[in-house]
């Protein structure tokens, strides 16, 4: 007996549903993901007990406009202040620099000053208790 096989219909998958889904995925990833370049500052803990031999740290105050008060002078250019501090650390007079925010100073200028000092080559940096 001969059974006639129905000719197979070429079945084409439509592209339109695919495009719909891809568009939705695209919109989802565009809205949900962030392209920010995240960085991190390790904040030294204040719990390490100071050695008796270790010289005291230098304390600098960050003012609201982002300038640094150090040793009686106000430095708008943090590189200048950093060079002075670096010299003191190298001579063994001080061990580290503690950045203290002045009253009411927000995090923005404080972190900027912290970052500028780190960029100027000071490695031992800490964030001090503000007033």
């Amino acid at each position, binding site marked *: 007996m001969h059974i006639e096989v129905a000719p197979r219909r070429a079945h084409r998958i*439509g*592209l339109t549903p*695919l*495009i719909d889904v*891809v*568009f939705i*995925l*695209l919109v989802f*990833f*565009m809205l*949900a*993901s*962030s*392209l*920010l*370049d*995240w*960085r*991190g*500052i*390790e*904040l030294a*803990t*204040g*719990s390490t007990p100071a050695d008796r031999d270790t010289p005291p740290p230098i304390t600098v105050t*960050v003012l609201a406009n982002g300038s640094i008060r150090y040793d009686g002078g106000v430095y708008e250019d943090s590189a200048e202040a950093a060079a002075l501090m670096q010299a003191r650390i190298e001579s063994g007079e001080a061990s580290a620099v503690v950045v203290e*925010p002045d*009253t*009411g*100073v*927000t*995090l*923005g200028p*404080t*972190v*900027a000053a*912290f*970052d500028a000092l*780190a*960029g100027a080559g000071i490695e031992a940096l800490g*964030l*001090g*208790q*503000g*007033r």
Partner: protein
Amino acid sequence: MLLPLPQRRRDTEENILPLINIVFLLLIFFMVAGALHTRAPFEVEPPGTEHADDSNPDNQVLAISADGELALGGEALERPALTARLREREGDTLLQVKADSGLPAAALTDLLGEIRAAGIPRIRLLTVHRGE
């Protein structure tokens, strides 16, 4: 007068293939280059730095808004609850903090002291790289 016959329209699916190619490329770009993070229920605008090291936020970031609102891992909580939650963490020594640049710095150092008291030895403040 003899008008030219309208050309037979080509298959529309063939016409949108370049579009699909581009959309696919965009999709792959956003999937690879973007990062999905848990978001705090409030707006946080982190401070910018130029010299800080790379650091990818994990899913247990402590977010602090400019008004001092707190959220751990995208879930808002109050200050007493925060220390309780931090005490539960064991073996996990690093806590990432994403604080708004408008937050008074004294409020942050205050809170950091409390976090350290709750037994978190390492704290990393997250910032955004600012191009030179």
